């Protein structure tokens, strides 16, 4: 993809809900992400960082605004396809499928895309390569319940890259990990973003991690401000 071409364009994103009174979470967020951008979104707890990430990742619907991903305007009919082909998520609590092995987890996005995932297929080989890259080649047939937190997050990263997405969304990816493992995960994520030309949008409280990103934003009272 052309590095000058935006992979995500968000305009005037508003989000509000009743709790029980009307609470305005996002008050017109504008954001354009280019291919290869690494973006950190910071802010206090409850400011709506995760909500913004989920809206940008099409998991949540904005009250109003415009969202375009990989040159496609997001609507109710193409959300799932965009999520499968162009986006990937890495969550704080990993969210791996518990009854599956590490390899099966990594292959799941390809399976949803109806790709051939039988041994020897391109998707299968790619999943094995990704697990090798995150250092889990020897544990690919382990049930994910048996993996440590850091290993689980590495499986999540490999899974996120399975369908070769344009944008990676990470919501406090090291929130549940110790400092050393966090450091490893941060490096892994940023390496993938740089080496494979993926855009990375992460929500974090970690100033060091934010400092490693090419762009930093702070969400304050529903407004996204560049730092």
């Amino acid at each position, binding site marked *: 993809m052309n590095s000058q071409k935006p992979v995500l364009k968000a305009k005037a994103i508003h989000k509000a809900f009743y709790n029980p009174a009307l609470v305005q979470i996002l008050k017109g967020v504008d954001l354009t992400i280019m291919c290869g951008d690494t973006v950190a979104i910071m802010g206090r707890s409850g400011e709506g960082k*995760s909500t913004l990430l989920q809206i940008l990742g099409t998991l949540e619907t904005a009250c109003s605004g415009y969202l375009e991903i990989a040159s496609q305007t997001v609507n109710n009919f193409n959300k799932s396809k*965009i*999520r*499968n082909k162009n986006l990937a998520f890495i969550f704080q*609590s990993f969210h791996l499928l518990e*009854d599956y092995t590490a390899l099966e987890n990594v292959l*799941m996005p390809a399976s949803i*895309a109806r790709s051939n995932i039988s041994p020897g297929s391109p998707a299968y080989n790619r999943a094995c390569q990704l697990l090798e890259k995150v250092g889990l080649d020897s544990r690919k047939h382990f049930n994910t319940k048996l993996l440590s937190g850091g290993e689980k997050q590495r499986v999540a990263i490999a899974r996120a890259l399975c*369908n070769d997405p344009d944008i990676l969304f990470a919501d406090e990816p090291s929130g549940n990990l110790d400092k050393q493992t966090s450091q490893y995960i941060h490096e892994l994520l940023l390496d993938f973003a740089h080496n494979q030309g993926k855009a990375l949008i992460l929500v974090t409280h970690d100033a060091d991690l934010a400092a490693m990103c090419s762009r930093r934003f702070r969400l304050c009272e529903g407004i996204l401000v560049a730092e």
Partner: protein
Amino acid sequence: MFELSVACKYLIPRWRQLSVSIISLVSMLVIALVVWLIVVFFSVKDGLENSWIDKLIALTAPIRITPTEKYYNSFYYQVDSISSQADFTNKTIGEKLLAEQANPYNPDSDEEPPVYWVKPDLNQNGDLKDLVKDVYQIIASSPELHETSITDYEITAANLKLRMLRPYGKIDQEHPKGTMTQQFIEQAAYIGSFDPNTTAIAKTLLPLSPDDLQNLQYVQSTSADIHLPPSSLHAKVADDGSRIIIPGNNQNGEGILVPRSYKEAGTLVGDQGYISYYSPTPSAIQEQRIPIYVAGFYDPGIMPIGGKFILASHQLAGLIRASHNQDDTLQSNGFNVRFKNLADAHKIKAALMKAFKQQGLDTYWNIETYQEYEFTKDLIQQLHSEKNLFSLISMVIIIVACSNIISMLIILVNDKKIEIGILRSMGATSGSIAIIFGLCGMVMGACGSIIGIIVAVITLKNLKFLVDMISRFQGYDLFNPVFYGNTLPNQISMEVLGYVVLATALISLLAGIVPAVKASLLRPSAILRSE
């Protein structure tokens, strides 16, 4: 397929989901139980129904062709009564078949036909149509009917009297054959001819009892044909399996088959007697007697007049019938049309009707399948109605059994909420999520029905053992042999299996819709955030 692989994964029982696993197992077992019940019930019902229909057809035919009133009013039928060549006597269908010419009338010597008679029905050559032989001609020449056979039948009425000689007391020097007692059975009966060249009737023959064999030995010992072995006196299938042999024309008289009600009344194979009928003679109406003996018993099945219906040779039935007044003859003779596959009955009837119409015979003959016979129509309709009713009831039972799946799937959806959110975040559509849970329901229904079918097949293979066990337990027969025969017939119907498998899969799928829709409507953001 992604959805199927996920659904199968969800259905594997796990300790972590013990409650879901137990509910799933119970739901599946309930479906299996219902399927077992339905398959066993319908198999026995179909078995009984088919055995009744088999017996009915063995005693009649899959299709019967009978003369209409127009036939009896036709010149072809009436002309015999004024023709010297026909001895001025109306003829039965069998006699017409043997007649040398269709029109025996000689205008030079015979009286003039009455003016009110219908005009002769002539063929293209100007000759009188042979309404009987033309029927044979059609069957022989039509390619659609090449696998059918046709024979004429006669039904008449006469009086049957049987003498039952039974040994009584001790055998000693003074009474080397014991003392004999005698009883009589006398009944007005229908005498029907049967075609010995079909073995279908063998299905209805009852096996010989030890008492029958003993009685045959006695008959043989007192017979003038002393050289005849007892085995040559009873009805049986020929060694080559091509026909039924009913011995006749020996010193004991003509062999006849009587219904099982006679056996229950104490008659034995070998009992002798006579058939009497009244025949006009030049001086008066005189009683005529034909000696007969019981050559075997048959099971009339569901035939309402079965208890009074005696089967005899074509010659015997024809002889009695020929002596009767022929005015009231509708339905009492005609043709039996036989073929291998009963399911072809309607197709063959349609082919016959078409051919008869082309030959201009359709108004002279009435064609009926076994489902349309006057004496069985109501019963067969009732059997069909019962089948429809039981199908409806079984559908309701399946619905009730499958409704368990709804509650199980709702629990499963709640249990798998996070996985639903994860799959949605990876791009699974709400439709895919709905399909996963719909498939869970369908797979459970299908597994339940397969288990039920397997158990049903095992049950049916051991049905006799089970029935005997229950009979012993309750102290009397579970199924009365008078109605159901000595062994309960059963026949696993592919139709029933297909119906049960499809119905359970479909209803399970429908039962899965509510939980599936609930699962598909879950918002992934809400699920993932709550974690």
